[in-house]
């Protein structure tokens, strides 16, 4: 490797760090230079202070939020897989339930939270259920698509051998739907996270959402921002985890990226 090439690579590796640090530095300088009030936009140094000061409750509540998200997400995976398979395997189920599903998906799920509160009261159920409701749709659609788009020739090869519908679904449909399924998990986990935080904000005594609701009532703006940072970290961790699972489970479907990498 030439010297110039190595240098370019080092610069590229350093770039994310430099840009991130630069972002916060400019933020800090702007806030100080303009004398912006802490109630509008706290300086990063203040947010860092709040992060440290409230590290106990922040990590506790983050852990709780992660749990709610994960529980709702797990429900969505189970339900989404089952419904997706039914939809992909049977044209009747597909034709019959698709309008209902689309209509349901069109509802902004925040609007469901008040109903959940009436049904289940304030507690852990509304966040879990909101996370579930908001995240199962992409899983259903993806699994159904994977199943329903088997190449007609593959189907012909198997049917000419006397394969039953069940054989075709087991041998081809399900393995084929797996990349679609794992691909949808990244979207689903992000949505589930949105759902649990929103429900916590409105209908829970615990979790980062609830912490934010209380910080907002107290006008504790630095804590609000610290909670945002905690959410960002949590979100990235959950996204990365599903991305890793996807990569490990469906390596064969990512061959094109691997080849070009």
């Amino acid at each position, binding site marked *: 490797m030439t010297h110039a090439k190595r240098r370019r690579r080092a610069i590229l590796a350093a770039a994310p760090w430099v840009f991130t640090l630069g972002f916060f530095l400019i933020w800090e300088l702007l806030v100080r230079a303009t004398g912006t009030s802490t109630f509008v936009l706290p300086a990063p140094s203040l947010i860092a202070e709040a992060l440290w000061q409230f590290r106990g409750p922040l990590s506790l509540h983050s852990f709780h939020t992660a749990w709610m998200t994960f529980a709702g997400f797990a429900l969505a995976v189970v339900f989404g897989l089952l419904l997706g398979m039914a939809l992909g395997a049977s044209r009747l189920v597909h034709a019959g339930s698709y309008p209902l599903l689309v209509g349901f998906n069109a509802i902004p799920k925040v609007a469901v939270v008040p109903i959940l509160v009436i049904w289940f009261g304030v507690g852990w159920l509304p966040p879990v259920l909101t996370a579930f409701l908001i995240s199962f749709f992409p899983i259903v659609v993806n699994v159904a698509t994977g199943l329903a788009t088997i190449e007609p020739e593959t189907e012909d090869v*198997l049917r000419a051998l006397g*394969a039953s519908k069940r054989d075709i679904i087991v041998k*081809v449909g399900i393995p084929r739907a797996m990349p679609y399924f794992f691909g949808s998990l990244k979207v689903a986990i992000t949505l589930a996270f949105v759902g649990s935080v929103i429900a916590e904000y409105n209908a829970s005594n615990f979790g980062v959402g609830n912490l934010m609701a209380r910080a907002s009532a107290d006008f504790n703006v630095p804590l609000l921002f610290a909670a945002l940072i905690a959410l960002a970290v949590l979100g990235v961790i959950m996204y990365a985890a599903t991305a890793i699972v996807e990569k490990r489970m469906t390596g064969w479907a990512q061959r094109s990226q691997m080849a070009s990498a």
Partner: protein
Amino acid sequence: MHPETFVQAFVDIHDVTHVYAGAEDGAPAVEHMTLKVREGEFAAIVGPSGCGKSTVMKLATGLQFPAKGTVIVGGEEVTKPVKLAGMAFQNPVMLPWRTTLDNLLLPLEIVEPHRSRLRRHKAEYVARAEHLLAEVGLAGQGSKFPWQLSGGMQQRASLCRSLIHGPKLLMLDEPFGALDAFTREELWCIIRDLHAEQGFTVILVTHDLREAVFLADRVFCMSARPGRIIAEREVDLPRPRDLEVMYTAAFTDIVHELRGHIADARQAA
């Protein structure tokens, strides 16, 4: 009357008219189609694109059922997918999550009696698959995934898959269409040798007249849609045929004659 009408045909398509359920205009894909192929024979079907060649394949394997007429394969009228057939298409349709070897074993997971024997006699079947791979020049490639193979290699593997369960009828739908000329010639020789050795019946659909004449005992020409058989030509070139035969006058004459039929068919369309 032809003498061969007395011999029982292995594939007997008699006066078949087929309309696809999804056809918008309700026009038939094939009409008054009659075709007989004897057991062990290598038949080729040629015709202009869209004339219903693939439809004939689907009818003969029970993937489609005719609106009119009868289809008899192996002495039985086809009322459900026939289980004695193997198929290969222009697109090799290998399952990308399975290794080449596991792709080959797929038909055995479907067809009885192999289906119930497969688990206990795995080694025997793997040996059979590896033997087939070696015959098509893919020795030792079984552990690779299909996407690690070239198009020609995938097509060879697809050929192996269509033969693994020892079918009595091999249906080939333009299997060499997407290959380069050299690979195509190699595969011609492979399928020629497999046919000579195992004696199954072959129906090959192609739009390459030289391919048809080189491989087949009998060539059927189809008209433009709705497809019918407009000419049937026995290829009496002696076997085993070498690629060199394609440069002989006898060979060229047959190709030329068939070309005339196809040209007429296109003119009429």
